């Protein structure tokens, strides 16, 4: 730096958040004594308008050229103060924050020690701020389109919102129809709306929306680029049916030689389908698909004299020659709405899910009570001997949730209420049924939930507090062995049907999405948001947002709310047409770079590549950073053997004096 450093140091009280534990006056006095410090002040709330004005006035009146703010975490207010510097005509990156709240006042009790630590943190920030370099954020154009992965209710809602706002949406769904899990549900709690009735209009809307390009039965294969400029490659899997000709009449499915042979995924395996199928009657697009693993013609090369579907199809839509198709496009933002899997009840062998046909999961129960389900809405179960209408029915809560033995510590948030709803639906259909719910705690936290829970209990559903230890068979009855923990009574209750209220789990194929988009997972293995409170729909990667259960278990209203949030966030770069690229990115010292490419392999954002340069007549490779992709994480710097790549503002020569100052070395 050519000009002499003139520092301003501002110590924030943060009300009493800091001031109660740190003697801000003493820290101010100390800061004043540090080299190059022209002004040092303290104020109740530095982030407030008058607080910021103090800084701006000093910059203008005292000619400050560096600013230290000792307050909260830079994640909180760094942007605030950078803006203040900029407004006063100073480069916004001439700011260093000393975190004397999260790293000091909030974690210490002893005032004297906390004050001493605040002084050290301030001294360290002062040591560093003098060495900061001016940086300029850049702006690049943003592609006015969005990619949404997953067309369950979250993906559908986000697509509709972005499409309605006037931007192009590519909605990619890996299964043959949109609708996701919500399409499988019968009624929805707590209002008992028919799930299909409220969902299907939206499914039809996404298919017909002029701004939405629906890519069903497709998978995202590759994503590169950065916020505003993602390049996307999608594989449209061959349906072996020409969708432009298929009318959805269903003649083919009836004709299929193996019709009704295979478990239908949509019916949770309870209904059957053939090799050519429509997953469910309201499927969108209403086009048939041939399952290449089941079709005789595709697996064996022949199907009788000629495939029956081909014979049956009037418009001639069957096309066994069809191949996967790759489509590529550019988008400015991505929403991940990949949803969830239900917990695999086989992982709790004590409940005999794989052993007894009348132990079923909650999702199977949804299909069983659904009028469009395999039994047409009649509750019929196989007790091992015959099909019966169950009269004694048990629900077991928290199967695969709040259970460290299966690695799921979290609450799945929907099971208490779907159990209450299903209990109600059973009572509705089998009025003389005796229904018991075994629970650990009932969590009825949402709008109208507690009222619904009360209503269900008034209907005669018995809630027993206890976590069953075992289910076994006696005669043609299932016995649930449990201790009623409120009365300390061991029970062995008899039932015709046991419904396991299985929890929600991250999708088994999430790994693919994580690798594709370089996302993070929280400890519960769901996709991680950028901040649990303040950035719940963002990810650590700019321009990539989360919606729905891929981020954590949610009910439908929460999912829709998050989808709308994600849509609104994704719309920001789209509507602005530009994105700013942070200037605190890695920089390469080309003179010392040996071009080994370690940083290229290490970079989690694929932001670095090797390029050839002319070094005194020799063409050599050196690393180069794509500043738009770089997040300034510093991984490259840690991996570089010759320290030739360093994040700007966090260069060795900037942070080593900071560390030295912390250690009291001048």
């Amino acid at each position: 730096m050519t000009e002499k450093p003139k520092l301003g140091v501002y110590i924030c009280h943060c009300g009493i958040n800091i001031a109660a534990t740190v003697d801000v006056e003493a820290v101010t006095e100390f800061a004043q004594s540090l080299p190059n410090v022209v002004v040092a002040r303290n104020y109740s709330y530095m982030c407030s308008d008058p607080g910021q004005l103090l800084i701006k006035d000093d910059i203008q009146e005292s000619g400050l050229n560096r600013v230290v703010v000792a307050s909260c975490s830079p994640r909180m207010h760094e942007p605030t103060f950078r803006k203040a510097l900029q407004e006063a005509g100073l480069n916004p990156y001439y700011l260093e924050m000393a975190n004397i709240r999260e790293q000091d006042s909030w974690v210490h009790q002893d005032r004297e020690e906390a004050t001493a630590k605040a002084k050290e943190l301030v001294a360290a920030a002062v040591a560093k701020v003098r060495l900061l370099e001016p940086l300029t954020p850049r702006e690049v154009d943003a592609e006015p389109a969005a990619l949404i992965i997953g067309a369950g209710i979250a993906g559908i809602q986000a697509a509709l919102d972005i499409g309605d706002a006037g931007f192009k949406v590519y909605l990619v769904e890996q299964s043959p129809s949109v609708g996701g899990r919500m399409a499988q549900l019968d009624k929805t709690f707590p209002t008992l709306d028919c799930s299909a009735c409220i969902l299907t209009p939206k499914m039809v809307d996404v298919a017909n929306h002029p701004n939405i390009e629906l890519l069903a039965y497709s998978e995202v294969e590759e994503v590169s680029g950065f916020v505003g400029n993602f390049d996307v490659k999608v594989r449209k899997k061959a349906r072996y049916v020409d969708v432009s000709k298929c009318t959805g009449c269903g003649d083919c499915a009836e004709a299929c030689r193996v019709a009704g042979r295979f478990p239908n995924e949509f019916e949770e395996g309870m209904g059957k389908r053939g090799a050519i199928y429509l997953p469910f009657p309201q499927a969108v697009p209403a086009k048939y698909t041939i399952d290449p693993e089941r079709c005789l013609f595709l697996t064996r090369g022949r199907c009788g004299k000629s495939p029956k579907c081909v014979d049956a199809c009037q418009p001639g839509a069957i096309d066994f020659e069809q191949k996967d198709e790759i489509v590529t496009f550019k988008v400015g933002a991505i929403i991940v709405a990949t949803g969830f899997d239900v917990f695999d009840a086989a992982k709790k062998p004590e409940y005999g899910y794989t052993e007894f046909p009348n132990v079923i999961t909650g999702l199977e129960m949804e299909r069983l009570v659904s009028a469009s389900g395999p039994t047409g809405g009649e509750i019929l179960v196989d007790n091992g001997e015959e099909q019966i209408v169950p009269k004694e029915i048990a629900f077991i809560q928290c199967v695969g949730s709040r259970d460290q033995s299966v690695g799921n510590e979290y609450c799945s948030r929907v099971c208490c209420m779907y159990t209450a709803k299903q209990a109600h639906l059973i009572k509705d259909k089998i009025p003389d049924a005796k229904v018991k719910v075994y629970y650990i705690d009932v969590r009825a936290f949402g709008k109208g939930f507690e009222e619904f829970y009360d209503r269900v209990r008034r209907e005669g559903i018995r809630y027993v507090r206890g976590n069953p230890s075992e289910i076994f068979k006696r005669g043609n009855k299932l016995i649930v062995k449990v201790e009623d923990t409120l009365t300390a009574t061991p029970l062995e209750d008899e039932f015709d049907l046991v419904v396991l209220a299985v929890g929600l789990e991250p999708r088994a194929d999430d790994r693919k999405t994580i690798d594709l988009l370089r996302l993070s997972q929280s400890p519960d293995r769901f996709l991680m948001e950028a901040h649990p409170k303040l950035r719940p729909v963002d990810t650590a990667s700019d321009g990539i947002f989360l919606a729905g259960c891929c981020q954590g278990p949610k009910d439908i209203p929460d999912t829709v709310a998050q989808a709308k949030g994600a849509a609104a966030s994704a719309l920001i770069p789209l509507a602005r047409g530009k994105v700013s690229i942070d200037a605190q990115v890695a920089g390469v010292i080309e003179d010392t770079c040996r071009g080994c490419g370690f940083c290229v392999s290490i970079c989690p954002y694929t932001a670095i590549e090797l390029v050839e340069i002319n070094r005194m007549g020799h063409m050599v490779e050196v690393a180069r950073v794509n500043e738009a992709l770089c997040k300034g994480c510093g991984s490259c710097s840690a991996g570089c053997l010759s320290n030739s790549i360093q994040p700007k503002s966090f260069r060795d020569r900037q942070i080593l004096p900071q560390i030295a100052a912390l250690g009291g070395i001048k």
Partner: protein
Amino acid sequence: MDLNQLRKVAAEVVSRDDVKYLIGWRRGTFGYRVAPYFVEDAAGVDELIFSPLCISNLATYLTLVEKLPVPRGQEPDKRKVALLVKGCDSRAVAQLLVEKGVKREEIVVVGLPCPGMIDRDLLAEKYPETDKAAELRWNGEDFLLVGEGEDIVIPRAEVLAEKCRLCRHPNPVLSDITVGEPVKPWAAADDSGVAEIEAKGAAERWDYWEEQFSKCVRCYSCKSACPLCYCEDCILDRLDPIWVNRAVNFSENTAFHLARAFHLAGRCVECGECERVCPAGIPLGKLNRKLAQTVREEYGFEPGLDPEAEPFQASYKPDDPEEFIL
């Protein structure tokens, strides 16, 4: 080893238009000493040798060559460099390829299966060098000292270099031309030669290394001889910031050696050059082999075997173990 065959191959290689020179070994100027030898034309190959004293790793020269500025309007010499490699040397070449220290098209590798090398210090203890010329040869499993007097058979165990005793890869892992028949590895099991020191307690180990590192005179021979220490600007030399102080004392010496060892973790091919050239006799091989052993055991990775491998220090798997991290 049929030296005539080696010289014939070498002559063919250096005669090629696209080859600048071949790096090999020749007799030194004193006693039985052996020196590196740059052969520029076919006439020079007669001096080329391969004997049990050709222990030095010539791969070091690949990155040691200074790239002088090319005057404007001129092209840099893009001819290939040919070099003779033993098993361990070839691993250094493979690792250099992994980290793009050299490009495959820049080199011609002549592979020599290695029956084991002599530790010259051990040899000199028993058979001190004189100004009389002498040479060493392989004699079955043992060695033969051929001088002016009667030939002397030296049992293998007496003078075999430690790195050769522990060697798992005596045959070149990559070569364009191989001279000689493959040999069987001598090492019985996966032995890193560190069991003895590992068995000591922490305090004892500390005392041991304190004694060793205190001997260091910071001549940087280890760094210069290492085929994989070739950064344009080594951070251990840097003045801004000074990571390791110039002061020659236990603390700074330790920082120097540990930083070097860690920079070599998952890269060191155990060629033993660092220890061989150390004038203070610091057992640097133990340090590097310990880290190589950890990398092998924890991550199932051995550097310098596959020139296409992902660089170890730059690759990551979600299930990477970290039990050894304190």
